[in-house]
């Protein structure tokens, strides 16, 4: 089938250099867990021949907090804030995934107004997550300035979150069955201001990087992965779309109110770091389109569905997944009828995408490992759970 599966994926199965020449400078280098470019506590063991990477092995688990074990000892509502701590960069979409999973388990539907609010906040969060990715990714490759531009603009989004639910990062914005808070007075005005404020800012980022000769040199044909390999390795999100696979859960299996908005799915052609950059930049623009339609068309009505005070879903198990900024974020909940989930499994996109690092990096140079880790956009909170 695809070439990836027949090559057994044992770690560090390196094609050993031919023995005729004893390699005098074969280094095994530890990158991490304290390393400026590993986006958190990820340790990558690199086997180098000079500068070329022969193979890598990721050692993870430094940030493992046992979220799934905790879930089994918390009630459904109590567990809600834990979910924000996994992918702390895109906390809102974690919350959305979890609440929708439990609603599906309980066969309850959130009211339309709540769905619209959820879509607006999730798309804002997607933009914020992509901004943070762009800033840190550009910094790893050496361009210092985009970091400050992106963080300055991300402030606007975080202000909206803070006004809406009081928190900037771990927002805990949604409840099972709908939203906790009605939108504050100037919500539509703030979002509309943001919609006007942000497009020229994206043009600023693109002016800085898209046609920047050195940026092209550092990202073109780096960390190439084909669509088939992506599917085989379970890679989802912008990385998959950059390899040419037109698949986005918001379109494939619409949830919340996504079916009511029209937006395109940007895809790349040859699955290299530059295409992933273009895809994420285009995604930011598409999110703006969604927010615009959502803000203009937000219906009136209740924001909380008919959900009992104490949530005791019926016995059974369901799997529900949403399109988080990093990829498919899934919740597999087994309920035994009690108020606490019997088993709650989180399928994190970063954890599965990180597995593709070894394939993408083989044969590249050390400087590219940093670029590829950046382009995978992994968050260690989600990888280690």
């Amino acid at each position: 089938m695809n070439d990836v599966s027949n090559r057994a994926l044992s770690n560090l199965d390196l094609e050993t250099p031919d023995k005729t020449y004893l390699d005098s400078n074969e280094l095994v280098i530890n990158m991490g867990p304290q390393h400026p470019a590993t986006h958190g506590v990820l340790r990558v063991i690199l086997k180098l021949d000079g500068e070329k990477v022969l193979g890598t092995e990721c050692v993870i688990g430094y940030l493992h907090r046992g979220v799934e074990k905790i879930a089994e000892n918390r009630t459904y509502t109590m567990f809600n804030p834990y979910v924000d701590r996994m992918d702390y960069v895109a906390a809102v979409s974690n919350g959305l995934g979890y609440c929708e999973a439990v609603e599906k388990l309980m066969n309850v539907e959130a009211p339309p107004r709540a769905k619209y609010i959820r879509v607006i906040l999730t798309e804002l969060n997607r933009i914020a997550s992509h901004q943070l990715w762009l800033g840190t990714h550009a910094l790893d490759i050496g361009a210092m300035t985009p970091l400050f531009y992106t963080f300055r603009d991300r402030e606007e989004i975080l202000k909206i979150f803070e006004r809406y639910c009081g928190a900037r990062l771990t927002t805990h914005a949604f409840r099972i069955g709908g939203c906790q808070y009605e939108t504050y007075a100037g919500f539509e005005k703030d979002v509309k201001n943001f919609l006007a404020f942000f497009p020229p800012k994206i043009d600023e980022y693109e002016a800085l990087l898209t046609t920047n000769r050195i940026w092209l040199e550092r990202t073109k044909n780096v960390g190439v992965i084909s669509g088939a390999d992506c599917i085989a390795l379970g890679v989802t999100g912008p990385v998959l779309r950059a390899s040419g696979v037109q698949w986005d859960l918001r379109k494939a299996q619409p949830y919340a109110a996504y079916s009511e908005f029209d937006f395109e799915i940007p895809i790349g052609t040859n699955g290299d770091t530059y295409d992933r950059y273009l895809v994420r930049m285009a995604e930011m623009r598409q999110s703006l389109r969604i927010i615009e339609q959502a803000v203009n068309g937000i219906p009136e009505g209740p924001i909380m569905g008919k959900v009992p005070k104490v949530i005791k879903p019926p016995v059974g198990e369901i799997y529900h997944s949403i399109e988080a900024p990093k990829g498919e974020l899934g919740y597999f909940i087994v309920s035994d009828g009690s108020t606490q989930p019997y088993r709650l499994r989180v399928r994190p996109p970063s954890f599965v995408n990180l597995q593709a690092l070894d394939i993408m990096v083989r044969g590249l140079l050390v400087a590219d490992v940093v670029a590829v880790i950046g382009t995978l956009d992994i968050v260690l909170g989600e990888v280690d759970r």
Partner: protein
Amino acid sequence: MPNFIMSYLGSTVTPGEAGNQFWALIYVLIIFAGVSVAVICMNWIERKALAHFQVRLGPMRVGPHGLLQPIADALKLMLKEDIIPSEADQFVFWVAPLIGLLAAFTVYTVIPFGPSQAVSDMNIGILFMLGVSSLGVLGIVVAGWASNSHYPLIGALRSSAQMVSYEVAMGLAVVSAILMTSLNASGTGTLSMIGIVQAQQQQGVWFIFKFFPLGLIAFVIFAIAMVAETNRAPFDMAEAESELTAGYHTEYSGLRWSLFMLAEYAAMIAVSSIAVTLWLGGWMRPFPNLLNAPAWDFIFSLFPGLTFLGLAAIAFVGTARMPADSFFKIQRIGLAVFAALLGFIALLLLAIAVAGRFADASVGARFRDGIDYIYWFVLKVAVFMYLFIWYRATWPRYRFDQLMKIGWKVMLPISLGVLVVTAIVGVIVS
């Protein structure tokens, strides 16, 4: 003894040449102090300019607008603990920054700030400069090795390979500039730096504009090579934070580390002053031959005064806009004093310019010329410094193999090509 001192004042030859060790020593001290002050200002300017590129304010806390920040940094570095890794090689670890510093500063003996304002006018000026700048590589290589750990070793190997390969391109670009000096009547070129500037004066054109595209291409090659030579901006592979943590000076700390920084900035200033000397007509003011009417001389001689006046005005505006509450009182006074100082210098310079204008042949005129030479030279070097900062703000970093590819496959052939074409055109023209 006094005539030994005064004897030199009248002569129009550099102290080194006039065999006057005493004045040579004074020039060396002046240049050493001048470069250190320039490095300190450069540190402040780099942080502020970089900050304003990146939509932030930069150091604002220490002194008005962070003016005392470099001094604070220097003090901090001196007080910081100077750690030497356990199995590092004590002697080599100690000597490495000194080699780097030695290489960076000895280049200044040859750089002319004026027809007679240079430590010594060696007739192999350029050759000496190229030689000493290649010694800088040794400092870095040995530093990387002495720290006895993986990352500095790789950083040292990388930066030495990078500097050696760009030195070749730089050397060839310099040769094509020197070739242009020999296109005068006598047909004998010169290696001495002062000679080169005088050649540009005689030929009435800066070498960057000579045989239009050629001079410019050679200049651009040199400009790129000098950025790579000092491990800066897009070519800062050696201390690429994201991969090798800090490259060759990872294990250094405290004063020793600041020596490396001093050496890096000094090398930056040195290399850009060589570029200025070779291509932008060293200390000559713009359009020396075209607008050489005394009126024009006077106008151009006003520039130093006007620049300082401008700086003083900016400082005064700064004090005015400073918020009123008490915390800023000291800073306000400090800035006001600084502004007054700048204003005073501005007036002084204007006075000299005016005096020079009317009392032509007197000492005042020679003194005014001296100031003009230094002013124009420093202005041009400042432009280069701004370019360094600009590169650092906008460009991401080249990967190491791309860097080498450019060095060998792009820069070297082009600089060879420029050299050959310059030679041919030179033969045709003369």
